[in-house]
């Protein structure tokens, strides 16, 4: 399978990339790791006339700690996230999640920017970024702005990105020391998108859940924050009744597609189980 013909651009700066995207309009797509876009182009489901390859753009890579946040350049690969000691130490859930994405080869190329910006409901990072309270830096022809991850996703493949805008960095607040975390992902095989997945970040005090955030992947046309489910466990010891309440509250906001991964009822059912398991595993890790 060979993609349709396109013109290849390799800008060296964010400003040049933004100018190209703005000038070329709808006919152009930014090319990050390419492991979503290139397969779609080979299937002729995507036929951009111009690709703006971001691999030559300086300053889009790297992970740095800046006070209470971690700033990750959009072109940082999943492999680089996994190798980062800053990530393992400050954001262990990001390490855990990156390890569940695709396979080793794809992780050498696939980028966190591409994963969060594509708007694919199957991608794992968006729900995690919402759970962590991350924000995205968007740079466009009229300047830069920051958009919270939980305001970014509008529908499947529809995001807050305006024409000509490029997602250049992700800022993630570092959760408090001793927090518990877990990303639970049910998938049919390595490399598959989630049948259902849940991210949990929580803190405990005196044996009870003090704070909690829950995110859901591939259970709706956008990633979800399960606020009511989180509320259901705050102040509890995660007893069976509270866990059941949380799973039910999460299931209430799920509306997954029926596809090869299963019918709607099944996916909501296992979605609840992912929430339960993630809560239990996160609590066991909290100090």
């Amino acid at each position, binding site marked *: 399978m060979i993609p349709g013909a396109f013109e290849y651009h390799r800008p060296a700066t964010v400003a040049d990339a933004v100018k190209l995207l703005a000038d070329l309009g709808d006919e152009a797509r930014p090319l990050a790791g390419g492991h979503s876009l290139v397969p779609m182009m*080979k299937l002729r489901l995507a036929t951009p006339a111009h*690709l703006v390859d971001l691999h030559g753009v300086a300053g889009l890579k790297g992970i740095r700690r800046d006070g209470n946040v971690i700033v990750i350049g959009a072109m940082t690969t999943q492999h680089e996230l996994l190798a980062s000691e800053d990530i393992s130490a400050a954001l262990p859930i990001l390490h855990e999640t990156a390890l569940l994405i695709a396979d080793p080869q794809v992780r050498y*190329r696939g980028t966190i920017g591409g994963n969060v910006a594509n708007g694919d409901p199957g991608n794992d990072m968006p729900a995690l970024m919402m759970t962590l309270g991350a924000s995205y830096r968007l740079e466009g022809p009229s300047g830069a702005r920051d958009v919270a991850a939980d305001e970014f996703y509008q529908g499947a493949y529809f995001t807050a990105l305006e024409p000509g805008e490029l997602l250049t960095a992700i800022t993630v607040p570092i959760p408090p020391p001793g927090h518990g975390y877990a990303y639970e992902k049910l998938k049919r095989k390595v490399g598959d998108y989630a049948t259902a997945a849940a991210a949990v970040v929580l803190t405990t005090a005196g044996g009870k859940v003090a704070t909690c955030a829950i995110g859901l992947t591939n259970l709706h046309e956008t990633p979800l924050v399960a606020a009511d489910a989180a509320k259901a466990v705050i102040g509890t010891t995660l007893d069976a009744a509270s866990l059941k309440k949380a799973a039910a509250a999460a299931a209430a906001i799920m509306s997954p597609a029926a596809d090869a991964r299963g019918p709607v009822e099944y996916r909501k059912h296992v979605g609840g189980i992912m929430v339960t398991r993630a809560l239990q595993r996160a609590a066991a890790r909290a100090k």
Partner: protein
Amino acid sequence: MAKTHVTMKVNGAEVEGLVEPRTLLVHFIRENLQMTGTHIGCETTHCGACTVDIDGMSVKSCTMFAVQANGSEITTVEGMANADGTLSPLQEGFRMMHGLQCGFCTPGMILRAHRLLKENPSPTEAEIRMGISGNICRCTGYQNIVKAIQYAAAKINGVEFKEAAE
């Protein structure tokens, strides 16, 4: 469509060519360079048969454009033998442990295992299995591929290879 001039180092030799932007790296390697050891399997980034080593990364060469490899250093299965032409530890491992049946996945398996052992010279069985999880084999059931990689790791580390009891 205008063609672009690309140069890269493949298995230690400088090569060049004219490619359309849409030319996939695997097609450049197989058709322009006439090196057909790198296989095309699923064409959808799942099977890993087209895996090559690019600048220290295992990459599925069906999911990267040749223009993107401009200036890079690539190793394919044709570059895996020792300088004197004898089999490298990985190649020897696949031979000794019967790590292949039809052989279609083998070039990708070997290139992926090559990078895995560079990053983790003494992997556990579980690490090997996760390390090759982007490569599909439809013959062996993976048992002997895992053993082949264990054989190579032992040989590279200069220790005796002991086959685990089954």
